[in-house]
């Protein structure tokens, strides 16, 4: 199959991709490659389902206060998966939603997790009053393992951020970051790139200034590419027909770059292949963790293309890309 894919251009917002003809598209869908789970290093929890206090216009799974497609995981459900993960040898635990702190059992869930290993929470930091931050700091001090708070802020001004995250979100998130820093955390600030590549240094500098203003001088900032599904597909654009992974693209490609080679996601409705594909029924890989770890990940979704181009962006530190030995 001779096809040319504009990988560089397609990752760049604003560059029009090449359209594919209908027969080509059909072939691509049938031809979708799959990869095995090499090791379950990252266990993700959809701990708040699709429930969020915000309704961001770029959310790849369209979370909101009214989106109850996936409900909260209970502390008991998480504890059962944690116990199972010990025998499997999981390395890191990640918690996402929705907004994880919408789950009223979140502090208990983190207590349980930090007894076993490192935990990362992906949060909008708008639900972090002093008392919650104090509890988080206390459990982080007691644990041998890192508790990472990854805070989404999508711009360096209220105008820029609130355009996608909603009015008032910026001020509340920045205040939340300030409280986390004062309590000893070094939150990882994540921002989805809505600007041109050449503007990144300027944006990073503005972020450092903003964070320094709330006492954060060792700022950790992570820029993420947009995932063109869910609400984001309407906000900017969806994927083009050619933006998908084919078997020939996997030739010579290091599949360890893809999150699904080392991760699975536990939800209230079973286990999914990765946190991005929650809305895709084909991404469910089992009712239990035991079933899910024997499953292969089918790279048929277009969001897989972003992972292919940009690496496992969901990880704190994708560390499997550069070993050729």
């Amino acid at each position, binding site marked *: 199959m001779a096809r040319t894919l504009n990988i560089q251009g397609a990752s760049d917002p604003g560059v029009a991709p090449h359209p594919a003809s209908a027969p080509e598209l059909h072939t691509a869908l049938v031809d979708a490659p799959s990869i095995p789970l090499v090791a379950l290093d990252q266990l993700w929890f959809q701990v708040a389902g699709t429930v969020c206090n915000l309704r961001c216009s770029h959310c790849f799974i369209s979370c909101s206060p009214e989106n109850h497609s996936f409900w909260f995981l209970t502390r008991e459900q998480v504890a059962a998966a944690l116990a199972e993960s*010990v025998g499997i040898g999981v390395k890191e635990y990640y918690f996402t939603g929705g907004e994880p702190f919408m789950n009223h059992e979140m502090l208990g869930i983190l207590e349980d997790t930090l007894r076993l290993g490192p935990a990362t929470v992906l949060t909008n930091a708008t639900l972090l009053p002093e008392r919650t931050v104090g509890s988080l700091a206390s459990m982080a001090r007691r644990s041998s393992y890192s508790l990472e708070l990854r805070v989404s802020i999508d711009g360096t001004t209220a105008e820029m951020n609130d355009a996608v995250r909603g009015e008032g979100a910026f001020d509340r998130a920045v205040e939340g970051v300030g409280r986390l820093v004062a309590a000893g955390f070094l939150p990882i600030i994540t921002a989805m790139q809505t600007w041109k590549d050449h503007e990144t240094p300027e944006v990073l500098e503005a972020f450092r200034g903003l964070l320094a203003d709330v006492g954060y001088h060792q700022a950790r900032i992570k820029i993420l590419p947009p995932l063109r599904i869910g609400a984001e597909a309407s906000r900017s654009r969806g994927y083009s027909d050619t933006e998908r992974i084919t078997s020939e693209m996997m030739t010579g490609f290091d599949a360890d770059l893809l999150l699904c080679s080392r991760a699975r996601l536990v939800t209230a409705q079973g286990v999914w292949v990765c946190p991005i594909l929650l809305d895709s029924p084909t991404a469910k890989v089992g009712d239990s963790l035991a079933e899910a770890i024997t499953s292969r990940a089918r790279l048929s979704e277009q969001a897989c293309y972003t992972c292919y181009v940009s690496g496992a962006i969901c990880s704190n530190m994708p560390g499997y*890309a550069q070993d050729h030995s």
Partner: protein
Amino acid sequence: MSLGSREGVPTYRRVAAFGGVYSNHLALAAAIADARSRDVDQIICLGDLGAFGPHPDKAAAILRADGIPVVRGNYDDSIARGLDDCQCGYTDARDNRYARLSYQYTYSNTSAEHRQWMGGFPSEIRFRLGDLDVLACHGSPRQTNEFLWESTTPEHFLAKIGRDYDADVILGTHTGIHWQRRWGDLAARQLEPSTEVERSGAYVNVGALGRPANDGRTDVWYALLEASGRDLAVDFVPVSYDHALLADEMRAESLPEEFVETILTGWWTTCLEILPGKERARGRL
């Protein structure tokens, strides 16, 4: 000697292990002298001879003259094979910029003879320490450049690696900060009986000789390991050396001033973005 294969592996009582030499020939010489004074049966290097420091051939010459076995690090692999980068595994643009500078300097100042020598390093060395099976590697047994930090590496993960690779003790160096964790006591944590770990063991990051441990001290570190039966004792040993002379040599070679600052202050100024929260918070930057 049969280092590098499981058949007829040697048995030792006390060994010194270090890694992350990063061309710091002054610290390397000091560490070897210190280890020899402590009556060790064997000294082992866990790789990454180059990077960061000056005159990479000097450290290589010391290791060769002393006949110290070396495990292949990602840096050694890159230099030996003439790859485009050091395979350090950084994900941040600033970290990668410094890594490139360092790699270009090291590659162009490593002799062809030393490159060929590095090409022969094994990916792991196995030996017995008392009654314990030890696997010495660079990052992890499954991946040369895997980052195993103290705050992000659970006991049960290490237990699995120990089972998978049939080792009681795993030695690594890649992250450059010394730490250790034992496994095998998870049953006390009210987990399901089926999750109990059957075999106990230890992972030891032996530290790095090339640069300080981001602790505000100019010393660098190596590890002394001793076993009686299955009882393992691990001592992390600080090494003082003429760090001011090293800084002078680095400046004379026009290496980045940020690297020199680390040698003179004991605080990391680069490669910071790869640190987990707990380790990053212990540093100054």
